[in-house]
């Protein structure tokens, strides 16, 4: 409840500044500054026309698809890096380096290879999050307490049993927070891709706002992006994370 009150106050201040700066003193141009009322108006219009829902659904489906592919690729690369010393020494530094690339850097390649299509966006999402997931998988495995491995070894665990019965469950808490971070990378990469290419989605709705010089629509889309991000984090990742930590007495 506290946070809702805080947000209300924040919106009131925002509207107050708008009145003072735009309506009364005319310091700022109305086309450059969004207002809560304007954003709410756009929200209702876009909701009624179905544009907003369609954009959110399209973006989510695309984001989740790309993310799942990225998770699979990331886990495979991560496992390979952690398992083979040679790759740990030689491939990991490259993966670490590539992971620092902002996802928007992949847009030129994606357009050249896939055109202005949905696949181009998927490519950007995958490149933007798979490497960070690979690095977290490797780190999660590396941070397992050695005593778990030792104990399982002296109980006769073979390699496969070690992975399924010890390495996977032991690294799970860190794995989930790595996957969570991977999602935020994917979500950002999705926006980078959508803004650059032309497929209906939140990114295009934002660009449409820019093209129509409608700053309120731009602001609205930004708010929606944040809200969707928060919802996924709070209602999926944090729930899973808390359950795992609670079970182990860590939260």
């Amino acid at each position: 409840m506290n946070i809702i009150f805080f947000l209300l106050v924040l919106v009131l201040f925002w509207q107050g500044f708008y009145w003072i700066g735009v309506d009364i003193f005319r310091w700022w141009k109305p086309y450059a500054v969004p207002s809560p009322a304007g954003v709410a108006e756009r929200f209702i219009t876009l909701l009624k026309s179905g544009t907003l829902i369609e954009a959110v659904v399209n973006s989510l489906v695309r984001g989740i698809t790309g993310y799942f592919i990225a998770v699979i690729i990331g886990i495979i690369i991560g496992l390979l890096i952690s398992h083979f010393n040679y790759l740990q020494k030689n491939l990991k530094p490259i993966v670490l380096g590539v992971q620092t690339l902002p996802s928007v850097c992949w847009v030129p390649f994606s357009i050249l290879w896939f055109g202005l299509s949905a696949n181009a966006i998927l490519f950007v999402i995958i490149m933007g999050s798979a490497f960070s997931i690979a690095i977290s998988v490797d780190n999660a495995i590396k941070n397992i307490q050695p005593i778990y491995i030792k104990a399982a070894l002296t109980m006769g665990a073979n390699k496969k049993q070690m992975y399924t019965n010890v390495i996977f469950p032991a690294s799970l808490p860190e794995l989930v927070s790595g996957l969570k971070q991977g999602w935020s990378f994917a979500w950002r990469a999705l926006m980078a891709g959508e803004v650059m290419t032309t497929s209906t989605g939140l990114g295009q709705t934002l660009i449409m706002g820019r093209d129509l010089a409608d700053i309120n629509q731009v602001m609205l889309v930004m708010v929606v992006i944040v809200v969707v991000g928060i919802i996924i984090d709070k209602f999926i990742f944090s729930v899973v994370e808390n359950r795992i930590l609670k079970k182990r007495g860590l939260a």
Partner: protein
Amino acid sequence: MALIIKGLSKHFKNSEKATLNEINLEIKTGEFVCIAGTSGCGKSTLLNLVAGLDKPTEGEILVDGNRVTGPGADRTVMFQEHGLFPWLSVIENVKFGMKIAGMSNDVQEKRALYYLEMVHLQDYKDYPIHQISGGMRQRTALARALSMDSKVLLMDEPFSALDKQTSNMLREELQKIWMETKKTILFITHSVEEAVYLGDRVVVLSPVTGSIADIIKIDIERPRHVYATEFVNLRHQILAEVRGEAV
């Protein structure tokens, strides 16, 4: 012979002298042998070698005639830090090794309950590890180790991280359990009192030479009592040996 250690030496690359030097030791089936020594005498190294977690520089280890080449279920280890899995409950932890060995669920359940009862944890079987005390965790680890039915049970200072009272209670229970089960146990400890209390024989390792300084047979009848005269005398004698070497 359950366990034969022949001419075992371990030389770590970064140290000048050998940590372990020409160790020869034979342990009979059903025997309880304690390795005592000050810190740095190589007793934990010896246990790691027997467990197969480390490789010797020279010599070999035989378990029931088979040469040790790596870790295995025939030499389960009970560690100083319990090494229980926090994502499993007490009974699931006890079942872990049996599950790895491919035993049926029924057998796992039956044996887990049997050993949990032995360590008085039957009422806590479904507790998560973080909700039980340090002493109970070590009991769980003991039940897990016992349930493996290894040829040799290796114990690496299993009670030394506990408070004195709990540690004394647990060694008393271990004595009782050993009298019932007659498992073959190699027990590492820095406490001479613990070694004399538990062992059929006490092996004193010298930190100076890295070799066996003495092997003392403990002929005191079980259950033993730490305040009995012969216990106190023997303890003093071995303590002198351990200290004498350490100076």
